[in-house]
């Protein structure tokens, strides 16, 4: 499946997404879904949700899922290429922006900007969750697990690891 065309499409795709990913890695998931599933057909809905689940089962920043998408397209080369495309340019931007920190962060304009942008970021994160749930919803029990996990994470302060573990056990026992 991996050839040079796919690899460069992968790098350009994630480069573009990274520069728009205000609000962090998860907020950009709908756009990654478009790239991976709709535009290039590299994977189907369920595979997309499962790769995300694999990333969640491992520790690390949420953006690591990009490495798994890269792996899916072009193996280990794809993993590093996609991660570098996603994190490299934005890191350089952050490095350059750093010196403005003290001057900007406390300013009123910055707070106004942040207050206007944060609801969009949160909305995009919620949309990502809905897309993932849709991808995983192959059986009624899968939908029930998604709903239950939503309620648990929303209403309780316990570690989200419990939900992942419960989902794994329920899936292994009942979804076969």
């Amino acid at each position, binding site marked *: 499946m991996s050839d040079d065309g796919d690899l460069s499409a992968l790098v350009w795709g994630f480069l573009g997404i990274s520069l*728009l*990913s*205000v609000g962090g890695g*998860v907020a950009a998931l*709908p*756009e990654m879904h478009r790239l991976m599933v709709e535009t290039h057909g590299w994977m189907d809905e369920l595979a997309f*949700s*499962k790769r995300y*689940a694999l*990333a969640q*089962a*491992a*520790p*690390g*920043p*949420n*953006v*690591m899922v990009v490495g*798994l998408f890269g*792996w899916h397209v072009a193996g280990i080369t794809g*993993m590093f290429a996609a*991660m570098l495309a996603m994190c490299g340019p*934005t890191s350089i*931007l*952050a490095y350059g922006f*750093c010196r403005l*920190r003290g001057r*900007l*962060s406390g300013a009123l304009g*910055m707070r*106004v*900007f942040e*207050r*206007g*942008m*944060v*609801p*969009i970021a*949160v*909305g*995009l994160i*919620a949309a*990502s*969750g*809905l*897309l*993932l749930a849709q991808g*995983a*919803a192959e059986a009624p029990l899968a*939908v029930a697990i*998604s709903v239950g*996990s*939503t309620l648990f*994470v929303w209403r309780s302060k316990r570690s989200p*690891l419990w939900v992942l573990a419960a*989902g*794994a056990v329920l*899936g*292994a026992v009942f*979804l076969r």
Partner: protein
Amino acid sequence: MDKVPGRIELFLGYAKIGLLGFGGVGPWSRHVIVEERKWLSERDYAEVLGLGQILPGPNVGNASVMIGRRFHGLAGSLLATSGLYIGPLCILVILSILYELYGTRPGVAPFMQGVAAAAAGMVIGTAIKMGQNLRPPPELILVGLLAVAGAAFLRLPLPLIVVVLAPLGIWLSLRRSWQRAP
């Protein structure tokens, strides 16, 4: 008083954040930097993270670049960032190999499907919780819901959503601050 971490300490601190961060590193990053190692005060940390959030790219990754630079310049940025990513990357390489080998086995596929469904709910739950803690005014809640509708139901491209909603959100937020300070 903030403690200035040495270079190795900076790397190890971030390696710890990366390896502990199940389900995202945000909470662990704050815990290690502010509470455990006292590199930054709560306020300073919130400022750096806030800037990391509004810049494109992963929030905690951006914060690691800025915090690393603050203590040790370019070397600090590289050490903090590589510390954050290196452990999880190694684990993901191993997991990916295992997944390719066993992922489609009859016993493993339903297991992963259960985790996938739970992980999806985790993302939705986190978004609801964040929205609740921020307590935005009603018109900004609406902007957030428009973002949900645009991305999840209408399937609009991200650039379009940001270009349309960002000016709207900022304008509404600006109007709020005018109302508050007459």
